[in-house]
């Protein structure tokens, strides 16, 4: 029976190619726009570190107080001062804790004919790799114990290792950074959380990650300053030397902790409150304790990582989809009513209302499938357009994968079949005699 419906449907489509084409076009455009917008939002708002996002918490200490922000805004600075970061690191109140910042350095390749180039280096305390589950290609990262003793060491990112050593195992070799020699102790594998939740301060949340990693103690000792935002309380500039900066009330380090259990979260919250109150008591903070402890998801929301533009585009795209569906509905209705005579004859020859209903629904399904296939092509085009329009971060996001492909076709199919119910229902109620007379 389905086969028969199918053959009839194909015949019906061929009888009215222009109308069918319009319906397919409407459906595929609607689906493509919606899926493009959803892809972007999906990746942007996606969980950057599945399985762990509930355990990782960003720490904020209100070291600037109300004078450092707009009136009525209770949100403390997103970064920490060096003294607070150091104090929290030393306290070891969480399962794992990491203080970090990003610096810019110059690499001189071993081959003297190659020009030196700039890289971004994440300067971090030891827990980073274990806490964020960074996979290692070669070697092992520095651990809590050996960081201060061993000399200048560096962990290379996979890309930088490819550029400097052709992707070979470079552990034990040395790299010239800012003119000094550092020994490679490990190379990370591909690791690229989207968005780069642990460092959203610069607003470059979807850009490529870090090129290399240096120990915090070593980098502070060498006076490597941050390449990112430094925010100082009004009237308290960072001072002139790096030592002044370390003592200042300027914030420039990110601080994260890992708290696997709910009880530990509550405990750490208490710890942060106590720490703030201690600072208040010692006269450093002239305002009540106001720390923040947010897991990855809440942090991304609080930092407005998913740009409103992405949400805006989903709203626009949904509206677009609605218009396309209304168009498709109108056209399908027109098509179905245009075949009243045919249906009348079939009714007179013994076809039941249900037969006609399923006939029209099958037709809608075929049109939906066609729309879905065209929609996939269009989505690919849209994503490519997005990549050209927004180079950089967006290029990594606007990608089509299997689930998106399936979702596109499914959406087209589902939407057309649902929309097709109304014309199908109308067709069911064609009175045979009246149509026969007219025909």
């Amino acid at each position, binding site marked *: 029976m389905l086969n028969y419906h199918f053959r009839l449907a194909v015949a019906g489509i061929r009888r009215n190619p*222009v*109308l069918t084409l*319009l319906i397919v*076009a*409407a459906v595929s*455009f609607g689906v493509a*726009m919606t899926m493009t917008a959803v892809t972007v939002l999906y990746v942007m708002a996606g969980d950057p570190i599945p399985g762990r996002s509930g355990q990782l918490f960003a720490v904020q200490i209100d070291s600037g107080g*109300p*004078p*450092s922000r*707009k009136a009525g805004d209770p949100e403390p600075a997103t970064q920490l001062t060096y003294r607070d970061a150091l104090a929290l690191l030393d306290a070891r109140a969480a399962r794992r804790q990491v203080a970090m910042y990003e610096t810019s350095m*110059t690499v*001189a390749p071993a081959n003297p004919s190659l*020009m*030196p*180039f*700039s890289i971004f280096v994440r300067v971090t305390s030891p827990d980073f790799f274990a806490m964020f589950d960074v996979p290692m290609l070669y070697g092992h990262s520095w651990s809590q114990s050996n960081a201060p003793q061993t000399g200048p060491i560096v962990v290379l990112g996979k890309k930088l290792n490819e550029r400097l050593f052709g992707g070979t195992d470079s552990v034990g070799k040395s790299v010239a950074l800012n*003119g000094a020699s550092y020994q490679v102790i490990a190379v990370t594998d591909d690791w690229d959380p989207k968005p780069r939740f642990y460092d959203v301060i610069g*607003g470059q949340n979807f850009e490529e990650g870090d090129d290399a990693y240096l120990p915090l103690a070593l980098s502070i000792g060498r006076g490597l300053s941050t390449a990112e*935002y*430094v*925010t*100082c*309380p*009004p*009237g*308290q*500039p960072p001072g*002139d*030397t790096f030592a002044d900066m370390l003592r200042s009330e300027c914030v420039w380090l990110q601080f994260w902790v890992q708290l696997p259990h709910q009880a530990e979260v509550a405990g750490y919250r208490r710890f942060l409150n106590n720490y703030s109150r201690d600072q208040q008591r010692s006269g450093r903070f002239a305002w009540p304790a106001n720390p923040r402890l947010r897991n990855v998801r809440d942090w991304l929301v609080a930092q407005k990582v998913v740009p*409103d*533009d992405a*949400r*805006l*585009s989903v*709203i*626009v*795209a949904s*509206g*677009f989809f*609605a*218009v*396309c569906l*209304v*168009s498709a*509905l*109108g*056209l399908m*209705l*027109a*098509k179905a*009513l*245009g075949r009243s005579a045919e249906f009348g004859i079939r009714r007179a020859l013994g076809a039941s209302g249900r037969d006609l209903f399923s006939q029209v629904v099958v037709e809608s399904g075929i049109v939906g499938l066609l729309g879905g296939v065209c929609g996939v092509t269009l989505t690919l085009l849209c994503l490519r*357009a*997005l990549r050209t*329009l*927004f*180079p950089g971060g967006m290029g990594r996001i606007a990608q089509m994968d299997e689930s998106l492909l399936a979702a596109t076709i499914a959406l087209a199919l589902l939407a057309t079949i649902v929309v097709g119910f*109304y014309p199908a229902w*109308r067709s069911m109620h064609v009175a045979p005699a009246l149509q026969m007379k007219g025909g």
Partner: protein
Amino acid sequence: MEIVPILAALRRNKSGALLAVVQIALTLAIVSNIVSIVVSRTYLMTRPTGTQEHELFALGYRLTGGIANVSTLEADLNSIRTNSDVVDVVATNSYPLRGGGWLQGSVGLIPGALSSRRLSAHTAVYQMDQHGLGTLGLELLEGRNFNAAEIERGQTGTDSVPLVAIVSKALALELFPHGSALGKLIYLTFDPDRPIAVIGVVDRLQSPGAAGTIDEHASENSIILPIVAAGPIGLFVVRVRPGTLDTAMREVQDALFKTNPNRIFGRLRPFDEIRRTAYQKDRAIAIALSTIGLVLVAITAFAIVGLTSFWVIRRKTQIGLRRALGATRLGIVRYFLLENALLCSVGVAIGAMTAETLSVWLWSRYGTDRLPLFELLSSVLIVAALGQGAAALPALRAARISPTEALRAL
């Protein structure tokens, strides 16, 4: 006129009429909001920086060896100034539209009041010598430029608070809403012994982060301090004679390479490119939304053509009858256009209300600009015209139906 028969016909075909109305209404609601967003983005993108952008480029470097002090910096600048295509050059800490960085500071009217919003203002802080105004091409509204004696020169990191400053008009107005800022004292620190006198006001000088904000103070508040900081990392803004940008950029780089070859250059950035990069996202969104709007309008148009054609075919007999009974071709065209106009007006009315609601909702949730009446009305006109245009084609075809042919089918 023909309203009564039209209404009767529409009543017989409620679902078709309803669909047309919904289609028009939705299209209008979305298109008008798209227009509004695109217009406001375009406005953002076209705000002037206050500089002579087409003649400027920026160049950053890092010295990996050799000496870096005030005199080598002067030597660098002078080697650039010898180039005949170069109008002037200035060493600076940043430039408009550069992006973020530690440049935001706050200035106060009294030393202790920096945290009081009534007596202070946040501002971008530029550090340039007397060449800054000429190089950037800033328009001095009041007062004067720095003179050579006022410039604080030193290594990066040495303690220097200048005695004078030039501010942008926006900052001057925020600090001194009543009367001129000229000659007034402002404070950058808590230190009451370090007042800074405003000696000049420039019309406009955008902040480095201006592209990312719609806050007028954040984008327009700027202060220029007469500071030259020498160090291993440097940033120059160079102004060249019009049309010589490409050659001048290369020559300047070569000249600097000669004074100290231990130099890594950042990308040379013509100001036009700086602006493009800064507003890349806004531009892309404007393009993407415009495309969506156009496709949407096209789909609506096709759908209206399709639907009207269909109704024309369905009513072939009716048209034939009317023609046989004496209706003119014009009468038939008018009938269909009037019918369509009726549907369009209802759709447009509902659409306008939906558009306004959507706009208010977007405004409250996403801080987009409210839909201005003018843009709503233009969108209404566009959509209405589109609806009529799309219906005209099938209506003309309907008029060509010959009465005999239509009646033969009876």
